[in-house]
């Protein structure tokens, strides 16, 4: 089920655009005058040194922060500040820098939670656990099982998430985001703290998600190798300003980016 949007957006068209966005917390300028766009079905990376404003950017995109200046257009409509549930309803899903799962619940239940917005039977039917509510549950479970198979986590389906190693928790979190069938998937450092093998697995999953479901993905990442391999286009932030934007090759060769990462001799 897709959230009602004004018009259908084809692959390659602009899904989300930010124009001259500025965000400040008191005197601290987190973002100043940033403009870029995310096209449908692409993998868009947002990179930059520590404190460059990457997570703030993500929070602006999913409506958690309302920028003081600038215009955000999502699916062709200008957007105001939203509560997280409104963002979710609008078709934006995200994972977090530090895993935010229900630690006491099983992997399966966590991913099922991602479907809760799509469940429509009321409290009464849910309580009865038969008839329409059961039918609905079975439909959603099928979808969730497909995700579980997709992410190769069958063996931990019934394991409490808190007992899982970090790499697997990250995968469950991705599963939960996918369960929402988002138009736009925001990944905040999906590979942070992972070893090489886990990173390779996660990279494959990100590519597969993009390929298989056609999901548009915006990701923040520190590992430059990962970013350059995965993304179609990269935007680089430094001190809240956009310093480069383009394909990985263009960005890699950009002098401003090299300076920002390696420092400049004064």
């Amino acid at each position, binding site marked *: 089920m897709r959230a009602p949007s004004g018009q259908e957006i084809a692959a390659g068209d602009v899904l989300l655009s930010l124009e001259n966005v500025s965000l400040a917390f008191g005197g601290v300028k987190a973002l100043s005058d940033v403009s870029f766009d995310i096209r449908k079905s692409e993998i868009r990376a947002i990179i930059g040194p520590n404190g460059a404003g990457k997570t703030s950017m993500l929070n602006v995109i999913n409506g958690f922060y309302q920028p003081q200046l600038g215009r955000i257009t999502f699916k062709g409509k200008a957007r105001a500040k939203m509560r997280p549930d409104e963002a979710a309803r609008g078709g934006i899903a995200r994972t977090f820098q530090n895993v935010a799962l229900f630690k006491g619940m099983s992997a*399966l239940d966590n991913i099922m939670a991602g479907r809760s917005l799509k469940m429509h039977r009321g409290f009464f039917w849910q309580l009865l656990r038969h008839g329409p509510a059961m039918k609905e549950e079975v439909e959603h*479970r*099928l979808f969730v*099982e*497909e995700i*579980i*198979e*997709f992410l*190769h986590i*069958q*063996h931990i*389906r019934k394991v409490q998430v808190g007992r899982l190693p970090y790499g697997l928790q990250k995968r469950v979190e991705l599963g939960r985001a996918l369960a929402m069938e988002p138009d736009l998937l925001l990944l905040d450092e999906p590979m942070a703290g992972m070893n090489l093998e886990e990173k390779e697995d996660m990279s494959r999953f990100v590519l*597969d998600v993009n*390929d*298989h479901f056609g999901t548009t993905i915006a990701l923040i990442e520190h590992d430059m190798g990962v970013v350059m391999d995965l993304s179609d286009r990269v935007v680089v932030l430094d001190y809240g300003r956009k310093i480069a934007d383009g394909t990985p090759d263009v960005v890699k060769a950009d002098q401003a980016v090299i300076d920002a990462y390696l420092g400049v001799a004064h």
Partner: protein
Amino acid sequence: MPIMADRPLNTFPKLLIHHAKVHASRPAMRHKDLGIWQSWTWAEVLEKVRGYAVGLHRLGLKRGETIAIVGANRPKLYWSVMAAQMLGAIPVPVYADAVAEELAYVLDHADVRFAAVEDQEQVDKILSVAAKVPKLTHLVYDEKRGLRDYDPARLRAIDDVIAAGRKALVDDPSVGRWLDDEIASGKGSDPSIMLYTSGTTGTSKGVVLTAERCIAAATDTVTFDKLTERDVALAYLPLAWVGDHYLNYAQGLVAGFCTACPESAETVMQDLREIGPSFYFAPPRILEQLLTSVMIRIEDAARPKRWLFHYFIGVARRYGETILNGEPTPLKGRLLYALGRILIYEPLKNVLGLSRVRVAYTAGEAIGPELFAFYRSLGLNLKQLYGQTEAFLYLTAHPDGAIYSDTVGPAAPNVDIRIAPDGEVQFKSPGMFTGYFKDAAKTAEAHTPDGYVKTGDAGFFDEKTGHLKIIDRVKDVGRLTDGTLFPPKYIENKLKFFPNIREVVAYGDHHDFVAVMLNIDLTAVGSWAERNNVVYGSYQELAGHPLVYDMLQRHVEEVNRSLAADKMTAGAQIKRFLILHKELDADDGELTRTQKVRRGFIAERYAPLITALYDGSTEADISTQVTFEDGRKGVISARVKIREAAWLPASPAMGQAA
């Protein structure tokens, strides 16, 4: 199994049709998919396989051609075997975890034009070596994920092939008649399957087995173990291994029992528990891993539970086997054992998925007597069998009620076994192979002039029980320079019984004394390290830790004590040992695909370590190349310490008396 005189059931497709008639609505196959056990009855399987066979024929698969089967235990891959056999083509299962070159060797050697594979991983692997397999033209795959953009001229989904075939069968009745003729014209003497040996001794050879011999052998053992269509087995061992083809495919089709396929390799333990098979096979390695994982969890359990467990395991040790064998047992023992069943044994068997097991076998390696006794004492009817690919598995098997951990049982029904003067076991059996594919020289080499097959294993018949005992490979049994008998595997197995030790390689032939290289078990030693505040950053660091060395030294000395107790083996006690810095791995060629150590290869690869073991030095440097799963190579270097273990006099009891 009824054999009708006019139409003998001498091929597997004929057996399939037979079951589809006689047990039409009984489950033939199950597979856990999307979290639910999906089932197919014999009638449904026949429908699918008929469609599949027609589909494959339309793609060009012909009688006598070979088709490779690469992947995990999945219904569609078993159906690929059946469909190929319907057309009179020869399936060639290949180890799914084989690296690309190994795969290329087998595919090329077997002249395959078709391959049925599990998923994108296998497709990519095969495409990466396509140049080395020029005859291969068609690939069919089970799992569609990630394969959308591949060349449809060469690649098809198995589902689509089946659908196309079924449509043809529905549209044109003559196609069905043609297929019936194809099946009927299959002869028992046709090659039914080709299994490549795991290559313990050099490159792998294609063992050709005929349908009537496969069925004859399976019929004997199905009768021997009274297997019926009500039994259930979980197929989790490699498709390319003779054990899986025999135990699940051949026996399943002969007895008509249900074969369940696990959801994935990681979920086997849970699937086992859910399915609750009645026929179970596990190599000693897996039984060992199971026991290790139980022991680790018990060590982490609360004190009263731990006490209860150890107490009743003690009870089981004392009385369990005598009760299982129907020998006289004191009343107190019976009562305690009954209590233990309620409190510990049954719940434990339930956790392990073994509650409903009626017949369980282990084979492949010698099993530690205590490991064997542990499972039997819980009431599990675990037996040993001995066999090899060339015999289509069974040569000997324990009959119910006559079970000894150090024997592999008497000759199976209709099997003729003799011991050659040099100690080699030789046999003639109903299932014996007809030859190695395209290798008449090797075929001749494997046979004696009077038609017996040489196993290459050294053994003898035990005088007391009449059972066969296998000591080692004929060529591996060696002698120390002073003439003492040196059976490497015997020593290795004694050490491997310790949960902390994963793998052992013993050396001593033409040397002055016995020395061993050990591999720690990361699960067991890791858990020990956690409980004892031993900090480590890697496998290598843990393996080299002085406290780990101390612990393994105690194990080695305990083995020396047991070796010293027997006059024959007292001279073969271990004098020096070391712990390897890396795990022995099949990808590096150190183990075979069935996880057996390749002693000669390891000796070459770790030559500096062997030299150091015998020249008295206390440490040595080694750097070895390792191959990662994707085929990339790297180098691991380490400085490995060598320790001395205490030697005991030949008869400790007498020594003390004096």
